């Protein structure tokens, strides 16, 4: 919206070129104090690039940034910070070996006598900050020992500690629990009231419409439009993002019945034992709050047990307890990670290498590779998954998140799995790609694969699963056919308020 006075932030004709890529192309944007301004767009649209330019992490190839009317050239992040711009980056931006407090005030440690750092002051400052914003963190804990969610909270606390004029949040909620998200939104509203400008990047469009005053849509590095969120619908927003009506059908595909007996899984966690069934041809969704233990279960099921996380699998007389992913794969149990960058992709290796990683033996002859067969298998699989890539020789690191995820799915499928376990299969992936991946999973189920989907996005589970189990404190506390499921029931069960419901074992 255009105020009479000079807006706090105005960006004109801003561009960023990377060798080869035009990440951002002549983008104009104005946003004002006391405003929450959201940025949405497909993977690779340029959201993070824009944020990185504003936070001084990268310098523009063209265009101008004005803060309160003054033109800025940020030499580096510290320059931007001096202008009161604080950032929560999309990528992990902490030092794992250091404590929470040292991370929060990194670069701004309080000095005491003789210019020496005042450790006590550092600690008290941190405690004060955490209390003020209701963040539950141990100031002395080493970041490497925190969960993903807790680490994200540290990044947020760090940004808040600047008490600047502009707060940049690049996908802050991707790994946060509902409660933590609510707290964050409360904080954002507070800051807005205090006259701060919040730039908010997210793929969760509901969230965006709930929290933001205005939303700017980027596509292929260009600005498509800036809209008031008032009266804007998700579908309308999706349409502007994708340039086409991309809204995907929420109706779960009909379950294809099989006569094979189901797998009976009994999961022994530190908090007790609970069971779960998995049948060929059905998609089971696992809901739960962050930290409820879904990933740990998913990994235990696929050959990464902990002493306190063991999955026993029985089916028609046979019974397994996998000691390694390798062993699990032999029985057709395959896991697709929730953390692509860290546990998924082989960044500098090409697409073929990434896709065939798990299937080398079945594609080769004895100890020898069959390079031609690898190429063929990879390209067949990836065309089937509608992968968009220049050439299969390109390193996977250059692909967008969505396409990377497709390659990972391809890797799993090349092992011809019987049970496919997808952990947050669409985290950080734009709506277009998301719909495609859902389609792929449905087809797989139809072809007789048993699929377990762990997701923090209820809509996703409702759209995808035939049956939804809810995890709370590392046990399955509720189970419901999708027809009977809705946000409320799931949330209730997930937060421990599970009302007893007769189990529907899905057959």
């Amino acid at each position, binding site marked *: 919206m255009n105020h009479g006075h000079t807006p706090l932030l105005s960006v004109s004709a801003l561009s960023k070129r990377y060798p080869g890529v035009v990440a951002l192309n002549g983008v104009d944007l104005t946003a004002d104090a006391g405003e929450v301004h959201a940025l949405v767009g497909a993977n690779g649209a340029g959201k993070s690039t824009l944020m990185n330019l504003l936070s001084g992490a990268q310098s523009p190839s063209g265009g101008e940034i004005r803060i309160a009317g003054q033109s800025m050239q940020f030499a*580096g992040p510290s320059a931007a910070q001096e202008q009161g711009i604080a950032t929560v980056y999309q990528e992990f931006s902490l*030092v*794992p*070996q*250091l404590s929470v407090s040292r991370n929060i005030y*990194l670069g701004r440690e309080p000095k005491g006598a003789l210019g020496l*750092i005042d*450790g006590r002051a550092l600690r008290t400052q941190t405690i004060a900050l955490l209390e003020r914003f209701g963040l539950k963190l141990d100031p002395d804990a080493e970041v*490497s*020992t925190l969960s993903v969610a807790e680490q994200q909270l540290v990044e947020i606390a760090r940004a808040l500690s600047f008490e600047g004029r502009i707060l940049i949040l690049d996908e802050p909620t991707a790994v946060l629990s509902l409660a933590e998200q609510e707290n964050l939104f409360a904080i954002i509203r507070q800051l807005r009231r205090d006259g701060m400008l919040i730039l908010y990047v997210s793929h969760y469009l509901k969230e965006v419409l709930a929290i933001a005053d205005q939303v700017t849509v980027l596509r292929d590095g260009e600005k498509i439009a800036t809209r008031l969120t008032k009266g804007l619908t998700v579908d309308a927003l999706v349409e502007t993002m994708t340039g086409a009506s991309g809204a995907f059908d929420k109706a779960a595909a009909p379950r294809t019945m099989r006569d094979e007996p189901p797998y009976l899984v009994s999961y022994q966690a530190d908090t007790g034992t609970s069971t779960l069934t998995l049948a060929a041809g059905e998609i089971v969704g696992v809901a739960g709050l962050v930290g409820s233990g879904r990933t740990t279960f998913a990994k235990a099921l696929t050959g990464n047990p902990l002493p306190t996380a063991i999955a026993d699998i029985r089916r028609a007389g046979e019974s397994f307890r996998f000691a390694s992913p390798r062993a699990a794969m032999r029985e057709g149990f395959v896991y697709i990670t929730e953390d692509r960058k860290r546990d998924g992709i082989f960044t500098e290796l090409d697409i073929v290498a990434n896709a065939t990683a798990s299937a080398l033996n079945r594609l080769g002859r004895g100890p020898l590779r069959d390079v031609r067969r690898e190429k063929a298998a990879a390209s067949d699989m990836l065309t089937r998954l509608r992968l968009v890539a220049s050439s299969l020789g390109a390193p996977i690191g250059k692909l967008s998140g969505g396409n990377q995820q497709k390659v990972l799915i391809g890797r799993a499928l090349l092992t011809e799995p019987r049970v496919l376990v997808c952990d947050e299969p669409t985290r950080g992936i734009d709506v277009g790609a998301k719909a495609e991946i859902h389609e792929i999973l449905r087809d797989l189920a139809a072809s007789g694969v048993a699929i377990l989907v762990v997701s923090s996005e209820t809509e996703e589970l409702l759209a995808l699963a035939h049956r939804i189990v809810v995890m709370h404190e590392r046990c399955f506390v509720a189970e419901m056919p999708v027809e009977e499921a809705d946000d409320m029931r799931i949330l209730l069960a997930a937060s421990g308020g599970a009302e007893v419901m007769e189990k529907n074992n899905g057959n």
Partner: protein
Amino acid sequence: MALARGCARLDLESTGVWLLLAGAVLAAAVTIPTFRDPANLVNVLRQSSVLGILAIGQTFVIAAGMLDLSIGMLTGLVVVLACWLLEADPSIAYTLAVAAMMILLGASVGLVNGTLVNRLKLHPLILTFGMLSILQGLIFTFTDRSVGSASPLLQSIANDSLWGIPLSTILLAVVLVLSHLAFTRTRFGYHLVAAGGNPESARRAGINVAAIRLACFVISGAFAGLAGLLLAGRLGTGYPLAGSGLELDAIVAVVLGGTALAGGRGSVVRSIAGVLALAIISNVLNLLGVSAFVQMFVKGLIVVVAILVNQPRRENP
């Protein structure tokens, strides 16, 4: 849970070297009477100060996520030059002047290392390995035999004691205290471990990572200069090969001290514990009259075992 696990590891990591040290001392004290002889302990201290100073310098570099293989030959170069310069005029005044020069020389070699690492984006290991070779070449171009002699001042600092404590040990202690302060109480110290732990995060926090790296190399270079002066005093003469291999001993000591080569952690105090452990082990083996050949084997074994029991924790999440 995860936190507990973390702390457990952290503990062993920081205490491992003390256990090793205590173990070595105890074993020695009970088995060998001569070990308890204060004069012997003084020996061990005196024998440790050169490596100690080098290890402290190396700790800065390693904590910052790098490595400096050039300090050994740099020490050697200083030994040769200092003795050569001091032969003409061993006066105290001139000694001090030369000392200043040598420390400056060391620092400037560090400056070159740091600049090249920053500018050419070279892997520190390969760069400093090249530098090692260059320095060795320079030494031999300068002389192929022992030259000059260390001034009385240098010799007495290296060999004499004050109230029964070797002067070189006192010097080491001063360096240690200052370095420990730098690590634990200054922004530089805070920022260098950050830069070592995750350079990109450090950069985003507004830390000038390049400057940090430069500084670390300068420090390790300057300390190599200082160590060279001590070594000159101890040898009394400019022996061309005096420094060869010291860089690896220093690295071993630092790692025994629980500083992972991955960077992001580091304690100069523990590095010194590592140095002492090594010195005592070799002293004990000598006192036990263990065959010279077996000594080498035992040392290798101890290094391996020590680092195996004292493993670095898992790195970045």
